[in-house]
C-alpha cells in the first residue's frame, strides 16, 4: 500500500523487499519490545504502589498516622528498581516483561510485613529489620544491574564451567574459616565482618553450582546418558563422566551437613537431581537419588538429635507445644487466626511466632492477608517459575535451556520446602521464602537469579531479530 501510494514507479523486486529496512522494522515491531517493556514498567509501578499502600495501611492501623520511617531507604530501593528497568531496556530489550515485576512485588510485600513486625517489636532506625531489608533490596537490585551489564550474553558463563564450580565450593567453605565464620540459630553458614555485616555465601554458591551443573552436563550429557554399565535395569554412567560432578556435589553436601543446614542441603540435592534429569532424561537415577535421600533422611532422623527433633515436631507439633515445637504451633495458630480473608494488615499477632520476619514470614502473611493472600503469593511464585521454565522450553542453546530451567526449579523447590515446612506438608528445615523473608544474602542471590533469567529470556526472544538483521 505504501509503495503504491508514494508514487515511485520502480517495480518491486524480491531482492529489494528482502533487504528493505521497512520490512525489517515491521518484523521487528511484530515482536514489540517497546510494548513489552512498557508493560514491564506498568507492572513494576503497580508492584511499587502495592508496597507503598501496604506500608501506609500498616502505619494507619498500628500508629494511627503515616510516618516517614521507610521513606529514604524506600526511595533508594524504588530508584534501584527503576534503574534496573532502564538497564533492561538498554541491555535486554526483548526480555520477558513479567519476571522483574513479580520479583519486585514479592520483595515489597516482604518489606511491608517486616515493617509491620518491626512496629510490633518497637524496632526503629537502623536496628529495624525493614530498613536493613530495604537497603539490602537496593544492593541486591544493583547487583542484578551489575550482572546484566557485565555478562550481557549468558554464553560467557559456559566458558568458565569449572571455575564457577570451584568458586561455589570455596564460598561454601568460607563460614568454616575461623575468624569470619559465625553460627546463627545453630547453623554455621554465615560469615561476619565487623558487627553488623553478615552474609551467607552459600546463597551465591547456589547460583554458581547451577551454572557449573549446566555447563558440565551440557558438555557430557551424551556420554552420561549413553555409555556405561547396566545394573538392575538402570544404565549407570562411567566414573570419569559422572565423577567430577559427584565430587563437586559431594563436597557441597558434606560442607552443608557439617554446617547443620538441612534446608540448603535439601535444596542443593534437588537442584542437582533436577538438572541431571533434564540433561540426561534418565528417570532411574532420579528415583535412585530420591530413594537414597529418603533412606538417608530417615537414618539421620534416628541418629542425629537436631534432625530427630524436627521430625518429631513435624509428626506431632502439639506434643511439646511450649518448647520444641513452640514456633510451629504458633505459626499454625497464626495462620488459623487469619483464616480465609486474614485479619488485615496490622491486626493479627504474627509477632507471637519466633522468627516471624524470616523463616516464618509465610505464616505471618497468612495471618494478616489470609488464605486469599497466600494464594496470591503462591500464584506469583508459580508465575515466576513458569516464566523461567518457559525460557527453558523456548531456548535455542542447551546451556541456556538447562540453566534457566535449573534456576527456575530452584525457586520452586525453595518455595516448596519453606511453605511445605511451615504447613506441615514436610518436616521444617529452615529455609527462607525467596524475596519475602528478611535476609540480605538471600535477596542478593535471588535478584541475581532474576538478572540471569532476564538475560536468558532476552536471548530467546531476540534471536529471530538477530537472524533477520544478519
Amino acid at each position, binding site marked *: 500500500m505504501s509503495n503504491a501510494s508514494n508514487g515511485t514507479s520502480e517495480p518491486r523486486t524480491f531482492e529489494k523487499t528482502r533487504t528493505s529496512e521497512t520490512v525489517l522494522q515491521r518484523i521487528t515491531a511484530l515482536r514489540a519490545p517497546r510494548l513489552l517493556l512498557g508493560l514491564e514498567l506498568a507492572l513494576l509501578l503497580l508492584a511499587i504502589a502495592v508496597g507503598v499502600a501496604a506500608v501506609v495501611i500498616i502505619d494507619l492501623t498500628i500508629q494511627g498516622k503515616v510516618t516517614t520511617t521507610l521513606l529514604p531507604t524506600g526511595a533508594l530501593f524504588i530508584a534501584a528498581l527503576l534503574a534496573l528497568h532502564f538497564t533492561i531496556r538498554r541491555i535486554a530489550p526483548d526480555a520477558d516483561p513479567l519476571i522483574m515485576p513479580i520479583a519486585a512485588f514479592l520483595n515489597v510485600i516482604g518489606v511491608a510485613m517486616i515493617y509491620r513486625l518491626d512496629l510490633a517489636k518497637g524496632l526503629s532506625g537502623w536496628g529495624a529489620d525493614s530498613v536493613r531489608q530495604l537497603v539490602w533490596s537496593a544492593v541486591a537490585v544493583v547487583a542484578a544491574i551489575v550482572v546484566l551489564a557485565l555478562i550481557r550474553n549468558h554464553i560467557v558463563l559456559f566458558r568458565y564451567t569449572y571455575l564457577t564450580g570451584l568458586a561455589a565450593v570455596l564460598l561454601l567453605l568460607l563460614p568454616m574459616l575461623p575468624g569470619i565464620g559465625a553460627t546463627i540459630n545453630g547453623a554455621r553458614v554465615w560469615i561476619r565482618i565487623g558487627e553488623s555485616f553478615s552474609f551467607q555465601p552459600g546463597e551465591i554458591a547456589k547460583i554458581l553450582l547451577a551454572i557449573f551443573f549446566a555447563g558440565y552436563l551440557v558438555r557430557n550429557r551424551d556420554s552420561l546418558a549413553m555409555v556405561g554399565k547396566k545394573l538392575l535395569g538402570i544404565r549407570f554412567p562411567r566414573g570419569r563422566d559422572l565423577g567430577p560432578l559427584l565430587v563437586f556435589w559431594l563436597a557441597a553436601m558434606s560442607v552443608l551437613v557439617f554446617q547443620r543446614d538441612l534446608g540448603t542441603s535439601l535444596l542443593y540435592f534437588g537442584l542437582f537431581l533436577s538438572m541431571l534429569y*533434564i540433561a540426561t*532424561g534418565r528417570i532411574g537415577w532420579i528415583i535412585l537419588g530420591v530413594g537414597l535421600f529418603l533412606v538417608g533422611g530417615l537414618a539421620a532422623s534416628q541418629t542425629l538429635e537436631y534432625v530427630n527433633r524436627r521430625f518429631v515436631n513435624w509428626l506431632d507439633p502439639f506434643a511439646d507445644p511450649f518448647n520444641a515445637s513452640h514456633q510451629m504451633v504458633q505459626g499454625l495458630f497464626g495462620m*488459623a487466626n487469619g*483464616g*480465609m*480473608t486474614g485479619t488485615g494488615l496490622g491486626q493479627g499477632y504474627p509477632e507471637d511466632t519466633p522468627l516471624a520476619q524470616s523463616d516464618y514470614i509465610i505464616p505471618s502473611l497468612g495471618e494478616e492477608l489470609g488464605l486469599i493472600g497466600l494464594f496470591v503469593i503462591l500464584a506469583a511464585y*508459580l508465575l515466576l517459575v513458569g516464566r523461567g521454565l518457559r525460557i527453558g522450553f523456548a531456548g535455542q542453546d542447551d546451556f541456556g535451556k538447562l540453566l534457566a530451567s535449573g534456576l527456575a526449579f530452584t525457586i520452586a523447590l525453595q518455595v516448596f520446602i519453606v511453605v511445605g515446612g511451615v504447613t506441615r*506438608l514436610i518436616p521444617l528445615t529452615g529455609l527462607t521464602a525467596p524475596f519475602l523473608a528478611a535476609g540480605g544474602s538471600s535477596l542478593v542471590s535471588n535478584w541475581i537469579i532474576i538478572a540471569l533469567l532476564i538475560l536468558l529470556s532476552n536471548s530467546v526472544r531476540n534471536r529471530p531479530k538477530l537472524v533477520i538483521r544478519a
Partner: protein
Amino acid sequence: MNKQLKFTTRVVFTMFIALFFSVTMIQFVNADELRANELNSRTVKNSYKVERGSILVDGDPIAYSTPTDDSFSFVRQYDPGSIYAPITGYFSHSQGVTGLESAMNLELSGSGNAQFFTRIMNTLNGVAPQGSSVQTTINPKAQEAAVAAMAEEGFTGAVVAIEPKTGRILALASSPTFDPNLLSSNNNADIIANYAQLDKDPEQPLQNRAIAGDLYHPGSVYKLLVAAAAIEDGEATPTTEFANPAQLTLPQSTSVMQNASRTTCGTGAKATLEQAIVMSCNIPIAELAMKMDRGAVPEMARAFGFEQELTVPLAVTPSVSPLPEDQAQTALSSIGQLDVRVTPLQIAMVSAGIANGGTVMKPTVVDQVITPDLRVETQVSPVELSKPISKKTADAVTGMMEKGVTEGLAAKSAIEGVRVAGKTGTAENGTDAAGNDLPFTLWYTGFAPVDDPKIAVAVVVEDGGGEAYGYLGGSYDLPTAVGKRVMEAVLSE
C-alpha cells in the same frame, strides 16, 4: 530436552498444588479447630478486641460487655453473677476462661466459621466487630429456686434439672458459688488476689459440683439402674420377691450388709422389688444384683451415659461404673457404693430417661446462638443420646418411684395436685484415718408430673448426714425438700 522439561513442569505444578492444598487445610478446613485449641493465645487476644456477645437467660443478659476507656476496650460483667456462675464461668484476662465463656468462645467473640460472612460484611461496612449472643436453656425460676434452697440451708452440693423430652438443662447450680465479677475486672492485680482467695477457700466455690466436681457415690439412687436392668432383662418385675433377712453376709467375705433401717425390709418374710425401691432397702437389691450377670448393671449405666465423654457444651466429667470382680463387689456396687461414682447431671439424666419413656436426650445448656443483628445463627435441636430401656420398663420403674413419693422415703417431694416420682439416696463415704465414720452424701432424684414429665431433677448434698449431724435429717428430708422446691418452681409457671 523438552520432554524432560515437560515432566519437570508437571512436577513443579504438583508441588504447588500440594502447597495450595496444605495452606487450605490449615487456614480453612482446620482453622476453627486450631482457633478453639486451648493453647491458642491468639483466640483469647482476639476476644478482647470485639464487643463480646451476651449470655442470655430467658432473653435477659446475665453476662455482657460494657465499653471502657482502658486498653481492653471492654469489661465483662455478670448480673446476677453468683447465681449463674456454674453456667457462665468467668472471662478473665489473667486467670483464663471457663464455663460457657470458654465453651462458646468462638461464637461469643464472633470468630467462628459461621460468622465468616458477617465478619466480611462488617469489615467492608466499617462496623466494629461484635460477637454473637448465646441463649441458654436455663429456666430462671428453677435456677433461682435451686440456688436459694441450697444457700438457705448452707448446703454444699449441686442441683441439676432437665426437661426430659428435650434434654434442655433448666437448672445447674453448685453450692457454694462465687461471683464471677471478682475475676473479670480489668485490673489484673485484683483478679489474681481474688482468685487466690477463692482458690484457697476450703469450701472450694470455684468447683462446679454439678458436672465437674469430685464425683460422688450415688448410694441408693443407683438402685434405679439395678431395677431398670433387671426389669429390662426380664430378671424381675416390681412384684418379684426376695428373701428378707436383717443382715446379709457377703459371699467370700466377712462383710455384713444391712438395710438403712438396720432391720428387715418391711415386716413380711419376703420383700418385693417395689418395697426395696420404695423403702430404699439394700439387701433385696444386692440379692437381685447377685442373681444377674455381673456386667448387667454397669452395662445399663453405660447405656444411660456413664463412662462417656459428654459436653453440654461445658465439659462433663464422665461418671464411672466399673465391672465388679466378684459377688461381694456386685452386691456393694448395686447399692451405689464401692467404685461407683457419679455427677449430679448423670443422675438427673437417669431420671429424665425414665421419665421420657426410656429415651435419654442429650443434655444441653445452649438453646440458640443469636447474631448482633438478631438473626438466629444456631438453633440447638433435641438429640437422642440413647434408648437404654423400653417404655414398659420405664413405666414399671416410674410406678415404683411414684409409690416412693406417695408412701415411701421420698414423701417430702410430694406436690399437691401433681403426680411426682422420686428416689432418695444416702451414700456412705467410709471412715477417716482415725476410724470415725465420714459424713454421708445425701441424694434425691425425681421427676414430675408423672403423666407428662416437665422436669427431672437431681440434688446432692455433701456431708449432709451421718454422725456429724447426729444422724438427723437424712436423705428423705434435706435433698428431697430441695428437689420439691425446684420442681414446684417450674410446675407453678
